[in-house]
C-alpha cells in the first residue's frame, strides 16, 4: 500500500555554497518530494534551494572495496604542496 518511493534530499544553505545531503523522505512523485522536503528539512530557513533525487538513482562506491578503490592516491604525496622543499627566503611560492 505504501508504495511511495524514497528520495534523497540536498539543501543549499545559502548562495555560494553547494547543495549538501541532509536526509531522505518518502513521496509519491518529485513535486510532492520537494514540498515534503521543504516542510521536513527547511522549517527554519535552512535553505535557499532544494534538490530531491530518487534514492534508486544513486550509484555508490562499495565500502567493502574502499581500500582498493581509494588506495591509488595514497602513494602520490607529490600532489600536495607540502611535499616540496623550498629554500629559505623564497616568498610567494
Amino acid at each position, binding site marked *: *500500500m*505504501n*508504495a*511511495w518511493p*524514497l528520495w534523497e534530499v540536498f539543501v543549499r544553505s545559502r548562495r555560494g555554497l553547494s547543495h549538501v545531503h*541532509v*536526509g*531522505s*523522505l*518518502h513521496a*509519491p*512523485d518529485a513535486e*510532492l518530494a520537494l514540498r515534503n522536503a521543504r*516542510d*521536513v528539512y527547511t*522549517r*527554519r530557513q535552512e535553505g535557499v534551494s532544494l534538490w530531491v533525487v530518487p534514492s534508486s538513482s544513486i550509484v*555508490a562506491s*562499495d*565500502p*567493502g572495496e*574502499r581500500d582498493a578503490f581509494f588506495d591509488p592516491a595514497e602513494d602520490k604525496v607529490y600532489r600536495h604542496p607540502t611535499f616540496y622543499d623550498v629554500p629559505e627566503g623564497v616568498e610567494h611560492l
Partner: protein
Amino acid sequence: MHFEELLAGDGRVEPRDEMPDAYRRTLVRQIAQHAHSEIIGMQPEGNWISRAPSLRRKAILMAKVQDEAGHGLYLYAAAETLGVDRADLLDQLHGGRQKYSSIFNYPTLTWADVGAIGWLVDGAAIVNQVPLCRCSYGPYARAMVRICKEESFHQRQGFEILHTLAHGAPAQKAMAQDAVDRYWWPSLMMFGPPDDDSTHSAQSMAWGIKRFSNDDLRQRFVDMTVPQAEVLGLTLPDPEIRWNDERGHYDFGAVDFTELFEVIKGNGPCNRERMAHRVAAHEDGAWVREAAAAYSAKRAEAAA
C-alpha cells in the same frame, strides 16, 4: 576498515559498512522506538492546540507539534538506512511489538501541562539526546544534531509558559505547581532503569551508541533543573532534594520504578488512548496516501 577498528578509533559507522547483526538490530530497535516516541508525543500537546490561551501560544504550539512530526521523520529515515521499511516499523508500533517512550502515556489535564512537558520532558529528552549526537552510527548521530537544535526552542517555550503562570494569579501558580508535581517523577523515569538493572546499557556503551549511563544522565538533569525551579518559584515534589557539597551534585529521592514498568507494560493512564488514536489516524489517512500514489501514477502515464 573493520567494525571493531572503527569503534576503537571513535569512528562512525555508515549505512553500507559491515556491522554485526546485533548492532544493527539494537539500532533499529532504538531508532524506531525514538521515532515512535516523537510522533506519539504529538498527541498530549496536540490536545491543547485548540485551547491555547492566545494566538501567540497557539502558533508556537503548532510549530512545536510540527517539529515533533519532523523529528519522527528524520528518525524513520535514519532507521531506513539500516535496511528496514518505515511502513513495517509503523505496523510494529500499531501491533504493540515496538514501544515508544512511556512519558507520553500521561495525560495533559491543564494548559500548564504543556509548559511542564516543554520544560521537564523536553529538558530530560535533551539531556538524553545530546550525547546521541556522537553516537557511533552516522545517520542516527546526524539526525540527532538536527533534533537537538530544535529541542532547545521546545524547552524554552515550556519554561516561559510556566514562568508566566507562576508569576500570575494564585490559581495560575497553583496550576503550574500541580503540573510540575505530576510530571517531575515521570520525567526522571525517562532516563530508564538504574544502571544495575538496565538490560541493554553495557552493550550499547561498548558499541558507542550510548555514551553515559542512565544514572549519570538522570543526575545531570536533576542538577540542571533544580536551580531553574528556583527561578520559576515552583517546588519539585521531592523533600530529599538538597545540594551535596561533597559529591558536587544534588541528592534526590529514590525513583519508584515499579510505576515505570507498569506504564511500559501498557498500564499507564493513556496507553490505550494513545495507540487507538494513532491507529485511527493512520487508517483514516489511508485514502490520502492511496490518492497521492494514484495521482502520480496517472501523471506518469500521461507523460509517457
